[in-house]
């Protein structure tokens, strides 16, 4: 029977698992779930737990007397899981580092007029958009949805 002090600390395996889970749960954005607002927080919690467990496991591996093999395995696990978890934490703060946009038009305010070119190179103003592409020619357009799209970064 192997003594518990001979093996790699279990925190490192769990930490690796949580580090991978933190990264993988970001893939849920592509499934467009209704509660996508919780995904960043879930990812952060998993990543922080992975960092704490990884750190604790690494400390246990080296503070207590363990065979060389357990120390090597521990180091490798920590080397994978800690940067992985750190990446998710950095991604969390990076994704939220967006301008406040306090000057943007808010509810009840007038949307500033503009003219931009469409995919045919034709200039279109905000007012012209109402007449530009009615979904049903018999139903007058009542509103225009403006989406400021920037790709997925």
């Amino acid at each position, binding site marked *: 029977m192997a003594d518990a002090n001979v093996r790699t600390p279990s925190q490192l395996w769990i930490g690796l698992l949580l580090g991978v889970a933190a990264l993988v749960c*970001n893939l849920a954005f592509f499934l467009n779930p209704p509660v996508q607002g919780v995904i960043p927080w879930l990812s952060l919690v998993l990543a922080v737990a992975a960092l704490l467990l990884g750190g604790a496991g690494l400390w246990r591996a080296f503070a207590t007397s363990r065979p060389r093999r357990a120390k090597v395995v521990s180091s490798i696990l920590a080397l994978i899981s800690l940067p992985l978890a750190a990446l998710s934490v950095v991604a969390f703060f990076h994704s939220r580092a967006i301008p406040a946009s306090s000057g943007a038009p808010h509810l009840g305010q007038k949307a500033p007029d503009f003219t931009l070119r469409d995919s045919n190179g034709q200039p279109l103003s905000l007012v012209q958009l109402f007449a530009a592409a009615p979904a049903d020619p018999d139903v007058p357009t009542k509103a225009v949805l403006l989406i400021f799209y*920037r790709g997925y970064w």
Partner: protein
Amino acid sequence: MSHDLCRKASYTFIFLSDPHAEVIRRYDLLHADGGPDGQDIARPAEFLVDTTGTVRWTNFTEDIRVRARADQMLAAAREIGR
């Protein structure tokens, strides 16, 4: 977004291009250095504007990964359609 790409993806809505981020600035939505190569791009934002030019619904995300869902936008549009 080119005309051919829109047709291939069968998008029926209108794509407008703001290459110099003029309208993005006018709407105070500039995210300086936000692009993958450090370009000045827009922060994600959605506005529903009625025929009087009044903003009736907005969505400003706190996380660029979390965008307005189609069902949210359709629900807001239905409110105006009533």
